[in-house]
């Protein structure tokens, strides 16, 4: 679509711009989203072009950001809230879980909550505490919310537009580690927002991830291929709803599944995938679903994050285990 490849940060910026152009009810709100363009510059230039009424530097309070977004939605607006870093979503948690997620239901479907909550997420950037968390599980477990994660510029561009256009509330996970990673072309048309995608076909082991781990998975597949092991790599793209059909179709061929995410393992996304796949493809599995995830600890000091995160070695080790099972 675009003539020049762009970073994920730029793609999100362009996507937001398109969303704002398309619908005058779209407003962006958050801390430092105005002149600064957000600490990651995702909203760069938008206040200048759309004005302070549509790109709103809010007071410093996350419950306030989400709570006022709910009010704006009742009034017919379509707010896009930026949470500055993953760890700071929690002061707004009550408004997200008790209000944003439930309002449409409480009103018997009469009021929509077309709110997008953008969360720069995950680790790998050497940050201080609270700046590297993976918080998607909390929201995936919450009925009424949808949770998606982009993993490349093209998806970022299209997914943010589709999320903003969705009449349901969407938690939009942006792997901050990839904001300024490799540039890429933008596809001419989007993949459906809640659909997983096989990003590399393979017949030996299915490897599933989303967001920030996708680059690791693709690298793992390359390395494994050198040993003659063909990984089928799937980018979930949406964590809730979960396109389990795509995963199961793959597992029915490979018989082996490794799920990868940065969030702590226990009670995480991988558990649900393991449970569903086992339930729905019990006789296809040659090995139990294995998980490569963050450990059940707080996010570590950055000097240890590389070991702690699901890295190439850990993914390949799990692949071996799945094959040897």
């Amino acid at each position, binding site marked *: 679509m675009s003539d020049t490849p762009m970073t994920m940060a730029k793609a999100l910026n362009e996507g937001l711009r398109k969303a704002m152009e398309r619908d005058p009810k779209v407003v962006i709100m958050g801390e430092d989203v105005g002149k600064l363009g957000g600490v990651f510059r995702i909203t760069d230039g938008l206040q200048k072009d759309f004005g302070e009424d549509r790109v709103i530097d809010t007071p410093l309070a996350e*419950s*306030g950001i989400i709570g006022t977004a709910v009010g704006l939605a009742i009034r017919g*607006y379509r707010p896009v809230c930026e949470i500055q870093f993953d760890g700071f979503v929690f002061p707004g948690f*009550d408004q997200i879980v008790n209000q944003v997620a439930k309002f449409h239901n409480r*009103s*018997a479907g009469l*009021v*929509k909550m077309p709110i997008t909550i953008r969360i720069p997420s995950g680790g790998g950037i050497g940050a201080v505490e609270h700046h590297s968390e993976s918080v998607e599980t909390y929201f995936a477990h919450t009925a009424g919310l949808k949770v998606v994660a982009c993993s490349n510029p093209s998806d970022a561009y299209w997914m943010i537009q589709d999320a903003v256009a969705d009449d349901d509330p969407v938690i939009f996970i942006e792997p901050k580690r990839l904001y300024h990673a490799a540039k890429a072309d933008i596809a001419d048309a989007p993949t459906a927002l809640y659909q997983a995608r096989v990003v590399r076909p393979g017949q030996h082991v299915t490897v599933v991830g989303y967001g920030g781990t996708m680059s690791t998975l693709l690298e793992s597949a390359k390395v494994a291929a050198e040993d003659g092991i063909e990984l089928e790599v799937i980018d979930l793209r949406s964590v809730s709803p979960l396109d389990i059909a795509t995963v199961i179709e793959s597992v029915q061929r490979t018989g082996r599944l490794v799920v990868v995410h940065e969030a702590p393992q226990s009670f995480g996304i991988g558990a649900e995938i393991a449970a569903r796949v086992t339930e729905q493809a019990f006789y296809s599995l040659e090995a139990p679903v294995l998980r490569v995830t963050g450990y059940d600890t707080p996010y570590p000091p950055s000097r240890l994050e590389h070991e702690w995160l699901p890295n190439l070695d850990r993914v390949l080790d799990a692949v071996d285990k799945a094959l040897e099972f």
Partner: protein
Amino acid sequence: MSEHVHAVHPEPDMVQLLTPEGQRVDNPDYPLDISDDEIAGFYRDLVLVRRIDTEAIALQRQGELGLWASLLGQEAAQIGAGRALRQHDMAFPTYREHGVAWCRNVDPLTLLGLFRGTNLGGFDPREHNFNLYTIVIGAQTLHAAGYAMGVIRDGAVGTGDPTRDTAVLAFFGDGASSQGDVNESFVWAAAGNLPVVFFCQNNQWAISEPVERQSRVPLYRRASGFGFPGVRVDGNDVLASYAVTRRALDDARNAQGPTLIEAYTYRMNPHTTNDDPRRYQLGSERETWKLKDPIERVRAYLTREAKLGPDFFDDVEQEARKLAEHIRSGCRELPDPTPESVFDDVYVTMPDELREQRTDFTEFVAEVSA
């Protein structure tokens, strides 16, 4: 500290336009040019919403409602505030504003579903510009602030066009004043000069906790710390509640920004039908407040000053009886939700996985009940 210490909150400079004895008093800041007919209209409102409340309590006792939060004693605050609203203003209630709902033309039956367990609210806030009841303490004050941000963005303040300029009225309780959300809504309202009026019914209690547990100064003073005006009004005085709210709403519509109103009143009933105030309240306190009953003083005025005779009061009583009958029979007829409806409005677009759960569930319920 042991007892509910009255000394901490004496009744200070609060706005009163009708004494407990039914005497009109003037307040230069809140001039109120009002006809006796209109006051009679308020009387009718007060009596009817008290009746709604009485009936709901009775329905709860009979097992028709799971719970009820009574407004007894707070009728004047709510009718005064509710009647000050214009049609296109928006109100954000807690779970106790049955009187405000009444002023918004919300059929009392609409409120019962939540308490009967047949729905979770289930109405469109925009139909009568009255939001869903909000049980999570304080959350609605931020919704009100956000809605007010929308009003500004719609260009619906300060135009001078009364059919256009819009204010928002956010209700909360004395206990709620401690919640982060309520204080954040003050921050937003002040920083954005939002057209929102905060209406705090200080009914002296948050379940078992006296207001002194929340604040050592009168709650209306909270506003000044955020940079907007606060005023305390006699919440048992419907005229004062009306005049003070009207002025604050006017200011909001005229782009003068927010106001905090503390309506000083009293919760004459238990917190809800589940509560047992004997554990924490002195009966004598209730007796004192009984003398300030919000209806009696209007009745006294209408009888003594407006010279209304028994006919008027009989008519209102008649109307109240009809309303009660409407509630009694209507409540029992509230439709039970169908099991599968649980899945219906979780999302605007139902994900496949939820649709599957719905199918399984519906089939299973049918099977089991077959």
